[in-house]
């Protein structure tokens, strides 16, 4: 399987993704799955400008990705599946039993969310969605960059940070 990381990150393509993970994984492509980005040429151009030379980026809606995931999984190159929200990953997990790991890399502050880690804030429905993925047999952990400890979902959901 060549998609080595299935990441939820509301910043999509940024330093932690292209450098923090991109360098140690020797990442050659990113599959960015998001319905809004997939329908916006401007958004796609913005993210294309963010990837370094030698790294490709592909854009798909969730529906498109459900039919194309296996092709990316059998790609010879090392890749990353990148989504912006927990709901998107939940839809992909529900459609593909082959997605067995999920990396919560960045879900930031918004109204109604409770801070669980420095880089993870969750609403109750988002927590339920992560639990749903776990129930389906997916190993869900939170980890912003490779040098930090992956935080298991059960620990993540019982963590609470103030401020």
């Amino acid at each position, binding site marked *: 399987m060549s998609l080595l990381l299935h990441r939820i990150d509301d910043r999509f393509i*940024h330093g932690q993704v292209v450098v923090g993970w991109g360098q140690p994984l020797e990442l050659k492509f990113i599959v960015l799955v998001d319905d809004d980005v997939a329908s916006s040429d401007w958004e796609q151009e913005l993210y294309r*400008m963010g*990837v370094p030379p030698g790294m490709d980026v592909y854009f798909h809606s969730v529906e498109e990705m459900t039919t194309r995931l296996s092709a990316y999984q059998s790609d010879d190159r090392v890749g990353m599946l990148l989504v912006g929200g927990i709901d998107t990953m939940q839809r992909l997990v529900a459609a593909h039993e082959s997605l067995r790991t999920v990396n919560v890399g960045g879900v930031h502050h918004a109204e109604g969310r409770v801070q669980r880690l420095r880089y993870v804030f969750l609403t109750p429905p988002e927590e339920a969605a992560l639990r749903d993925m776990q129930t389906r047999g997916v190993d869900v952990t939170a980890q912003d960059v490779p040098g930090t400890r992956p935080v298991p979902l059960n620990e993540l959901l019982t963590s609470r940070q103030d401020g």
Partner: protein
Amino acid sequence: MSERSLVVAVVAGHGQFADGLISAVEQITGRGSAFVALTNSGLGPSELEARILSSLDQTGARVVFTDLPAGSCTMATRRIQRTRSDVVLVTGANVTVLMEFLFSIQSPLGTPVGGLTNVAALASAAAEKARQTLVATGG
């Protein structure tokens, strides 16, 4: 407000990148207050974009210096540029580019340099000078 306290640009990046660069400018020139520092730490894309925009609006600055070309501060500024075509973005910032830009806009004593209206050209010239300082030697 004295001319000396005018903010010429926002510096934004990961961790304490901006604070560090500006502290270096302050130590070298005593003019660190010409820049406003922003960090992306703990901020989602919308919050970050709002903070950069707010800093630009509050200071009247039109230039944003960032660290990584793909960093979230860079992406947020590019989004701002979509509706604010007057905003200038310089990525890969270092202490030299800040000082070159500062002194192209204000004299070392803090007074405006006359006749300079093209901020984008000044930022571009400063970036070119800073690029020339990135040199590896020895080994």
